Structure formats: C-alpha cells, structure tokens
C-alpha cells in the first residue's frame, strides 16, 4: 500500500534492465519499498552483482521473471507472477523499449515494424494486463515511459517517434479509462537522456540523465501527478515546438 507520505511497498519493473526504470526502482527501495519484481527478456546472471543484487543490498526482496515485450500472449502471466510474489502492486513501471536508427529502419521495413511491436504493441498488452490488476486492487499507479519524441514526431526518428506518439495516446486513454477506479496512470516524457540507449548519438538539447528522470518520477508519484516532463522545463519548450510551422519542423536536423 502507498502510505500517507507517498512511500510504496511493492514495485514491478517491466523492462528490468532499463536504466531509467532501475533508477526509479532504486529510489523507491531507498524510500522504503520492500518487494521488487524485475521483468526482463534476458535474466541477468544472479551472481554477477547485477541490478537484483544491488536492490537486495538495499534491503528489498527481489524476484526476476522472464518478460518478452514482443510476446503479448505472455504478458498477463507476468503480471500474475509479480502479484503472486509481491501481493498488491503499488507501482508498475512500463519502461521497456528500443531506440533503433532511422536510417536502418528506412532500409529495413521489417526491423522498423518489429521495433513498433515492442515500443507500442508491447506496452498495449502489458499496460492492459497491468490495468486489469490495478482495477481489481482499486489502487496503484502505472508509470508509462513515453518520450518527447512522441509529442510531435520528427523526421529524424519518425518510426520511434510514431510508436511513442501511439504509446502516449494509449496511456492518456488508459488513464481516463481508470478514472474513478482508484488506480491511475502517470505518463513520463523525458527529453534526450544520456545513457546506454543513446551512447552512439550526438547529445541532444537540454540533455538529462536516468537519475534525474527518476528523481522527477519519484517526486511525481509522491504528489500523485498524471504527467511528468523531465526536465520540467520541456513542457514549456514543447508548447512552442508544437506550434512551429510544418515547413520549419521538417527541416529540423534531429
């Protein structure tokens, strides 16, 4: 249960190797979360001092489960396994995704479709399965890692951006569907995040880090926010960017 001061007991991370996701979980555990489920495609070896071990050192009970975003038929079972281990799920973080490279997608339409399978369809099946559980509990928050890339899709990464735009819309609709259920959805829109996923890219404007995004998410959870931009100033930046004429927008390099 989320307590009076916003501390939660249990967390499920879908995308158990996501840097942002793990940074959020680590903060929640430091604040008092006791049970964590890490759901990832390749389970990290138990012995190599991976994320599960780090979280255990911080005092959490950790369960690692197999999760493949591209196999929607397995998603409900992942949620059930997490609830079996942790009881009520106070926070579910949907953080999996692949960035990919637009030039490669231009050349390989199948790879492009597969990335959308993960970045959008995977979130739809996992998100709906999570929502069913939260609706039964009548409390809990689904945190959806969207991106500013989906706020207005850019030429430079429009396959990724289109999937995030779809995801953002899905998350908004799901949040509305859960209204009055006691459960809620929190949408996170980070800007350019310096990390493993973007290591090969030139740094974007107003860059942020997984830790800074996680700080914003944890503060947002405590305050019960519905949308979190990271950094917060991006909200205003994107008010302007959304208004740029198409002819200017098209010419943006990134």
């Amino acid at each position, binding site marked *: *249960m*989320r*307590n*009076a*001061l*916003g*501390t939660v*007991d249990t967390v499920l991370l879908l995308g158990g190797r996501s840097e942002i996701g793990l940074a959020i979980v680590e903060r929640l555990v430091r*604040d*008092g979360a*006791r049970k964590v489920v890490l759901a990832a495609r390749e389970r990290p070896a138990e012995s190599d001092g991976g994320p599960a071990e780090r979280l255990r050192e911080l005092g959490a009970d950790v369960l690692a489960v197999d999760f493949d975003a591209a196999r929607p038929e397995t998603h409900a079972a992942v949620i059930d396994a997490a609830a079996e281990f942790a*009881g*009520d799920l106070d926070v579910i973080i949907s953080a999996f995704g692949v960035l990919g490279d637009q030039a490669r997608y231009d050349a390989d339409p199948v790879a492009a479709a597969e990335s959308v399978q993960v970045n959008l369809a995977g979130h739809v099946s996992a998100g709906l399965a999570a929502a069913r559980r939260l609706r*039964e*509990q*009548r*409390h809990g928050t689904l945190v959806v890692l969207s991106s500013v890339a989906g706020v207005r899709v850019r030429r430079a990464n429009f396959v990724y951006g289109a999937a995030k735009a779809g995801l953002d819309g899905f998350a908004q609709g799901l949040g509305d569907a859960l209204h*009055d*259920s*006691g459960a809620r959805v929190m949408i996170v829109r980070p800007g350019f995040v310096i990390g493993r996923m973007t290591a090969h890219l030139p740094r974007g404007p107003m860059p942020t880090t997984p830790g800074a995004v996680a700080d914003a998410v944890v503060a947002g959870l405590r305050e019960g926010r519905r949308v979190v931009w990271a950094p917060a100033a991006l909200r205003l930046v994107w008010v302007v960017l959304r208004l740029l004429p198409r002819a200017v927008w098209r010419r943006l390099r990134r």
Partner: protein
Amino acid sequence: MTTDPPTRDARLSGWGRTAPTRARLAAPRDLADLAALVAKAPPRGLIARGLGRSYGDAAQNAGGVVVDCAALPPRWTLDERAGEVTATAGVSLHDLMRALVPRGWFVPVTPGTRYVTVGGAIAADVHGKNHHADCSFGAHVRSLTLVTADGRARVLGPGDPLFWATVGGMGLTGLIAEATFGLIPIETSRMRAETERTRDLDHTLELMTAADRSHRYTVAWIDLLATGARTGRGVITRGDHARRDDLPRGTPALDFAPGTRLAAPPYLPGGLLNRLTVRAFNELWYARAPRRRRATIQPIAPFFHPLDSVRDWNRIYGPRGFVQYQFVVPTGAEDTLRRVVARLAERGVVSFLTVLKRFGAGTPAPLSFPMPGWTLALDIPAGLPGLAALLRELDERVAAAGGRVYLAKDARLRADMLPAMYPRLDEWRKIRRGADPDGRFRSDLARRLDL
C-alpha cells in the same frame, strides 16, 4: 423477504485525509445484514468502519467492502443497577453522552473526540486522560457480540482469547455488532479543572507524575517549537468530575448541551499551519495558561473534546492532509522521550497539537497500544519535507526503547518495525487465523503492515 444491504462506490480515507482508496461501502440495517456481508465477502475482504476518526488507513479496504457500522440503527439500553450500558457498535460516544450524562452516568473512557463509535473504541482500544487511573476502553467491556468469518454471532467475554484479540485488533477479527461496558457514575456534568504552565520537559514530567496521584484526568500540551532551555515546556491540565457541592446552589447539575458546531470551510489551501502561525498559536496558548495552578469549573465538552466544537477541523491542513505520530515509551525510558522531543524541536516540526500523557497498566490485549510509560502525540502536515525519514528515525528510537506507535493513528509505519513494537504480534496472528483462516477481514492498514 430479505434483500442485500445497500452498497455504493466510495473513496475513503482516514481523519488525516491521506492515501485514500476506493471500495464498496455497505450500509447494514441489522445483525442479519452483517452476517450476509461476511458470507458474501469478496476476494479482497471486508472491514468495519465507524465515524472515520482513525487517522490512517485502518478503516479503508481498497477493492473490497467497507461496512459502514454507523449506518446500523443506533440502540442502547442502560442498566443502572449494574452501572453498565449495552449499545450497538455504530452508536457514537457523543450520542451516548447526550443520553447518559443527564441520567448521571459517564463513559468509562473518552478519547479526544466524542465522535467515535463503540465498535471503533473497542477495535482501537482507545484511551483518554484517565488512562493512569482507569486503563483503556477495552478494560471496561464486559461482553461483546462479534460476527466472525463463519457468519456466526459470538458473544465473547474477557475470558475468551478472541475477546482480547478483538480489543485493539483494528477490526481484523470480525464485525463487532454490540457491546456491554461499565460506566462511571457522576454527580454533575462539569469538570473541576486546574491548569498550570511548566518550564521545560523535566518539569512537565515531574508535574504529570505528581498530578496522576491526585487526579483522575491529566494531560499536558507541549510547545514543540520551544527550543534550548525551554524545550518541552507546556501546559498541564488536571481534572476530576465536579461534585454537586462544587456548583453554586441552583445550577442544573447534569445538563449536557455541547455548543453548536462551527464548520471548517470545505476547501482550504495547504500551508495554513506553518512555523509562523503555529509559533504564534503556541505563544498565545502558553501565555494564556496561568503560571500557578488555578482551578476552574468547566463543562465536559471543552475539557475533553475542545476540537469537537469545530466540525471537519482536519481540513485546516489543506488538501495533502496530515499524519499523527503517537508513540509510547515505557517508564524508565524518559531519556528516549527527551531525545525525541529535542529532535522534533530541533527539526522545527510544526505540530500545533502536541499532547503528552502518562499511561498506567495496559489490558491483556496483545495488540493494544498503551503500556505503563509516556505517550506523545503530534499532528504534522503530510507535505513536510524529509518527514518520512525523520519519522523512521523516531520509530527506531522508540522501538529500541521498548516502545511502540499507535496503529489507530498510524498511516506510514513500515511492516518490519511491527514485531519489535508489538512483541505479542504472533500470538495475536494465531488467534486471528483461528477465527478467520481465509483472511476475510482485511484493511489497507493490514496490507501495509502485513497484519
């Protein structure tokens, strides 16, 4: 033909207005309805709720059923020969006092508000200003009717282990349907009260100990914003029920008419209670109290329930609500009390109602809060930065000293602290499992604390 009790969807929180959750709120009409609700308990279980005065999540049950016991038809019968009353669980102490005081009887124990139900008073084993003399509410209960998980209405007395698991059991052993408890005979509806200022915490403790020997009711208000040599200064109130002779001839002795209630507006912004306003209030309150003890005659309501004159006073903390932190440390652990008070004062915790009380012996109930020692209760706005970590630090100190926090006030304790604070937790769990093997009685508090 019987129909199911009416239910509706409700968003419920405790008195602190933090962490609300949603549940089906059922309005039972009689004992048969209570049994029907238990029989049809959903997978997420059910829990009784009275007037919602528990500060945290004790009477919430996300996704399950919450039984609104205050909806039960209020019935009570007074047995003057035995000096006891039998009341249905949803009867409030307010209603009982209105009926009983004019007849010369008073409830054995009243907390800081009259707006609690008999069922809630038992489930939280509430205490009052007379704990050192009269123990807690459960000590006065002679029998109670409990609808258990099997749908049976069992009549329990102090000889039954389930009786004591129900006293202080936070509603998790079943639905209390009615109870019989002893009353205090009174000659008047007034209190002979004395107030006096104290210089610092040691002075407060010394005067409290002395006052407990001579008065039935004692309590101290502490100015938590006073620091340095004045840390722990406060105002002590002692009192007893006034005798007929204490009143001027011709005054009606047993009238009881608590004044009409002011109401807090439905919306108030956060931040009204800040260091400035609370410091101003504390200075005023302290200065108002006499330097030397002074006796006054006052009605029951302002003596016991000053906050009841403002309806919905919990709204003054704004939309984010507040938490109440109440702990007890055993006699002999005064050093821990001193350190906690100093720590709160040093952190500048804005609590405008900080109350200190000395407890006497407790009841045999394994989950009951009081133990011989000192209890301190404070209200803190939930939005105070760093509050979670500060209270966790205090939990550790309190547990290390052999003390505990009060579950009826709690909204944020960690489950792993519970076994140290309540060493008889396993004994309680065993009795509860025996009466409710499938865990039909569930609350958000029970989930949060693995009760």
